């Protein structure tokens, strides 16, 4: 096989691909994710894809490799070039993505933020769980489990993002409202499970009397469980409050590690995000802030929630 052969075949393949994309004259929606591949994001992305399919639009899904902001900037610029009708985006960084988002808006392309907000841009809509409200629910539950003055570990998300900041604030405010003397030991992460595990390991070594661990996301809870196993702690000895309602989180609850989970309606976030982008592309009026709601999952209602939210299909513990 000579090079000419290869090149001509490649050209034919590429031409047919391009013809296929030109043949559809309907709306084109770009869904740009932050490159996270955990279960929570799989559900959000699944919901988004499903909504795109249901609406019969041309649905482009692209992701920022390694969660790298400059790559996401480039993708947004490329989608402006691609002349898509609307963009739904899960920003890698709330502020950092704003220059590119402003360019898209200036080019007349509506931009809907999914799960994480964009700061510094007048975006079309922001679709997400109200993180403060959901974390309030988590904090109130935690307050009911401990006595005033008890020690609590809180595993943060990325505090450089609005999501991480709001979840921490919601939890701490609600807990402190009822238990003003509770001592909160903070484990800082950038949504990294290993950071969470390492942080909890050292916090537990320094404080053997921790009563409860709460997390900004379920991956952090997975790290906390690994740390507790390593320290020889049995399920339920230290209470664990998850956040997300992800398959892994609900599995932990069924195994007895988690006692509560402030669940987001993950698939709904992706779906409503894309539906809102489609509505905006059709020049319909959309709300500037859409809350997709939260739900406190407890061992008593975990099975029903898992079934209703579609999380059950991803769970390992039936």
């Amino acid at each position, binding site marked *: 096989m000579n090079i000419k052969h290869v*090149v001509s075949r*490649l*050209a034919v393949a*590429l*031409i047919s*691909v*391009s013809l296929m*994309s*030109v043949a559809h004259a309907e709306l084109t929606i770009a869904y740009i*994710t932050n*490159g996270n591949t955990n279960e929570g994001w799989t559900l959000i992305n699944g919901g988004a894809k499903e909504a795109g399919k249901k609406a019969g639009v041309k649905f*482009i*899904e*692209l*992701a*920022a*490799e*390694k*969660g*790298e*902001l*400059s*790559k996401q*900037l*480039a*993708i947004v*610029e*490329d*989608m402006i*070039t*691609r*002349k898509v009708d609307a963009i739904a985006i899960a920003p890698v*960084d709330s*502020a*950092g993505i*704003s*220059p590119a988002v402003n360019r898209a808006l200036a080019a007349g392309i509506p931009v809907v933020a999914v799960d994480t907000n964009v*700061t*510094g841009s007048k975006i079309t809509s922001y679709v997400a769980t109200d993180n403060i409200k959901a974390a309030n629910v988590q904090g109130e539950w935690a307050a009911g489990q401990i006595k005033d003055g008890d020690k609590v570990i809180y595993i943060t998300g990325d*505090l*450089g993002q609005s999501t991480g900041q709001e979840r921490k604030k919601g939890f701490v405010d609600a807990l402190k409202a009822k238990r003003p003397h509770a001592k909160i030991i903070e484990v*800082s992460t*950038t949504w990294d499970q290993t950071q969470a595990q390492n942080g909890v390991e050292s916090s537990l070594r320094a404080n053997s009397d921790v009563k409860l661990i709460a997390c900004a996301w379920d991956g952090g809870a997975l790290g906390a469980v690994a740390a507790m196993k390593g320290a020889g702690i049995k399920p339920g000895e230290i209470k664990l409050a998850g956040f997300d309602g992800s398959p892994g989180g609900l599995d932990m609850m069924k195994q007895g590690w988690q006692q509560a989970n402030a669940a987001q309606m993950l698939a709904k976030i992706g779906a409503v995000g894309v539906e809102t982008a489609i509505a905006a592309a059709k020049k319909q009026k959309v709300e500037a802030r859409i809350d997709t709601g939260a739900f406190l999952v407890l061992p008593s209602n975990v099975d029903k929630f898992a079934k209703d939210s579609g999380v059950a299909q991803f769970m390992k513990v039936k």
Partner: protein
Amino acid sequence: MKYLTRQEWYGALVAVLVLGVLLSIASPYFLNSRNLSNILVQASVVALLAGGQTFVILTGGVDLAVGALTALAGAMAGYMMVKLGIDPYLAILAAFAIGAGVGLFNGYLVAFVGIPSFIVTLGGLTLWRGLAFDATGGFDMSGMPEPFPFIGYGELFGLIPMPIVVMVLFYVSMSFVLSSTKLGRYVYAIGSNEMGARQVGINIRWYKLGVYVVSGLCCALAALVLIGRMDSSSGKMAQMFELDAIAAVILGGTSLFGGRGSIIGSLLGAILITMIRNGMNLLEISQFKQMMAIGAVVIIAVWIDVIRRKRLLRK
């Protein structure tokens, strides 16, 4: 024509042109001035890093810490301006000082202590990124003061985006340094035959130290363009950029074994990598396949380099 085909960067030029033609056929959105200018803007940061990397690779070394050093210089400059309210031009000076300082550190360990560059900069990869997080408390800074919005998004004469202007000026001066200064000529001499270079009386230690300082300064410049483009800075930025920078240099026809190569090739290599990403975005190819494609391209480029080197040795 013979002059052209004999250049080390000839392969990269052909690759850019062939890929350009293929992408123009495959996507109706590829071939327009807006997209081509986008590609050059997107290539600028990697191109700046690749420019410095070229010097290091020509001496037979490698700098794996360029992404981390870019993050350190950028995060520190951003922190100084946004958090501490320091004058932007002082922060720019500080970024260059950090770049030069880390370059001196790397160069000293490689040239004077004799630690392989691979090890020094592999350690640096996490050392400098860790320092970037630590020194800024892990927080992102956003809302860069002037002149950063101009550097990142401004246009010269309302026409040419500033990152492209910076990149072109940089490459013009770097090709001058490489072709017409002692440092440039000795870099080739050291890379092709270190013992021989020493025997003719070149103080190879100082020139080796010099290339790491050049690479460090390039990181600082890249960081300044990058924080302008992102209008924000953090220790997280420029993740894995060393891979793109090294790939750009190798794709540009510079030998990983040192001594052979050109600065123009690295510019073409950076443009080639960016074109591949841009094309895959326009053709809606998923993240995972993009990662695989870039990795495969790097391996193929080194493969070609190894074959070329064997042929040269046989001659």
